[in-house]
């Protein structure tokens, strides 16, 4: 989906390239989300999803967190934040109530830490589970504890 025109204009004013997803850094993600929600009316949080990227020659070990918000019925914008492993990204819970469960799921499965989340617990896996299964370095070939 192409980024809607009014959003593209605002994004350029913020110095962001209108792409799918819009790449934004951790300092700017809350401001961008607040802009999208409060000024542009993107009140529907479609999903928050993270993907783990192992360290490469140019980049450190990191997760990429992508949020997609919609202005019903037709427009949608996605923005992605890169979170180096061991650091955290601000949570969008204060803006979108739905970010609560979404970020908990990503924390549980991918291991991204969201700062300022009111209730960051595991949601899918047992509380005493070790590791985050959707990380690329998570081994699935042991059939016994600790399952990795």
């Amino acid at each position, binding site marked *: 989906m192409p980024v809607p025109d009014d959003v593209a204009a605002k994004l350029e004013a913020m110095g962001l390239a209108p792409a799918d997803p819009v790449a934004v850094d951790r300092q700017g993600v809350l401001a961008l989300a607040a802009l999208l929600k409060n000024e542009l009316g993107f009140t529907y949080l479609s999903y928050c999803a993270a*993907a783990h990227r192992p360290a490469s020659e140019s980049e450190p070990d990191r997760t990429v967190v992508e949020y997609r918000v919609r202005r019903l019925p037709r427009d949608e914008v996605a923005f992605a934040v890169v979170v180096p492993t061991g650091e955290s990204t*601000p949570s969008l819970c204060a803006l979108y109530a739905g970010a*609560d*469960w979404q970020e908990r799921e990503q924390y549980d499965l991918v291991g991204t*830490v969201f700062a300022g989340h009111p209730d960051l617990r595991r949601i899918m896996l047992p509380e005493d589970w070790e590791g985050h299964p*959707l990380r690329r370095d998570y081994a699935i070939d042991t059939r016994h504890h600790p399952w990795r």
Partner: protein
Amino acid sequence: MAVAHHEGAAVAPVGPVPTVVRPWPDPYLDPETHEAEGDLMVMNLGPQHPSTHGVFRVKLWLDGEVCIKAVPYPGYLHRGVEKLCEKLSYVQIPPIVDKNDYVSPFINELAVCMAFEALNAVEPPRRSQYLRTLGAEMQRVASHLLWLGTFGMDMGGALGGGASVFMHCFRERETILDCYELWTGSRFHYNTLTVGGNRHDVPAGFAELVKRTYRAIRDRAHEYDAMLVDNAIFRARTVGVGRVDAQLAMELGVSGPILRASGVDWDLRRDQPYAAYGEVQLNVPVRSGGDCLARYEVRMAELLESIRIVLDLVDGIPEGPIAALKPVKLPGAFKGKAGQAYVAVESPRGELGTWVIADGSDKPYRCKIRPPSYHAMSLLPYLAPGSNLSDIIVTLGSLDPILGEVDR
């Protein structure tokens, strides 16, 4: 509440946190601060409970029979589908995701197949698009019928009128599954879609069977109304119960009939047409009540609308091939071009999306399934406080959660 094992993580500098007014109940309420008449009772509704529609636990703090706080614990049915998707090749995934939303497997297959096709910009042939639309609408009727039955059961009990509604709905649903059985050979987990098209063409006699089946369901729909919505007890149990605020629902990402029952006119089939929906006349029922009755009305109207679409479509399937790609012979038959795609379809429960990252190999790099029920379940901490235990059950039923999809 911070959890010990990530306390060491460096916190990124946070900008000014916007303050928001939250007109809905606080899901993070500390029960200690509640002034109860007597003692608070902590009740674990589930994981083994007849009305949680699967394996699901809600921890309820009850003051008498009135709930003051609810904390849901999903995950009892977590099967690691997303991890499985990283380990299986693209062509092996459709039969696996059948099991996510086990009430509408066809639409699950559709969602992942469309996402994979979007990676390589594969366009399925027209006949396949029509068959997919037909199958999806047939499935929607089956899914809503199952919801109707279980909703009746939530209110009428397994040994009462609810069970009769349930059995009547299943009677109709079985005939729908007979249609699928004729088409795909399987009653439920069809594996009939593949990347780039369909695996099964419709056989002879299919259109007649579908027309007979769906006309019969349409002609009996008034019986469910007589058993449920016309009934004074049903009205007493649903009017004003579990009222969903549209603003909250949108922030939570709740979609589908629940959102439409709260007055938001949004349907992916109409607003972002996929498959052959662009060529199908579609009326989207919307109610503004936001309560259980409105959700019932929206779903019933959708059921009738889907029956109409099925009856319209089944004779007008264009001729032609059913698949754009060669039939699958090897796991590596399809390789996704490096990149990412997000495709959402309208499942009977709302926006069912697939977010897939490809790295050029025959397996997805990351495949996230965005299930509508997960978002619907996140409504529960907001709906439960202040309502009676019986109302929580009805509200939960009206959200139509499929736990296989919530937990994946």
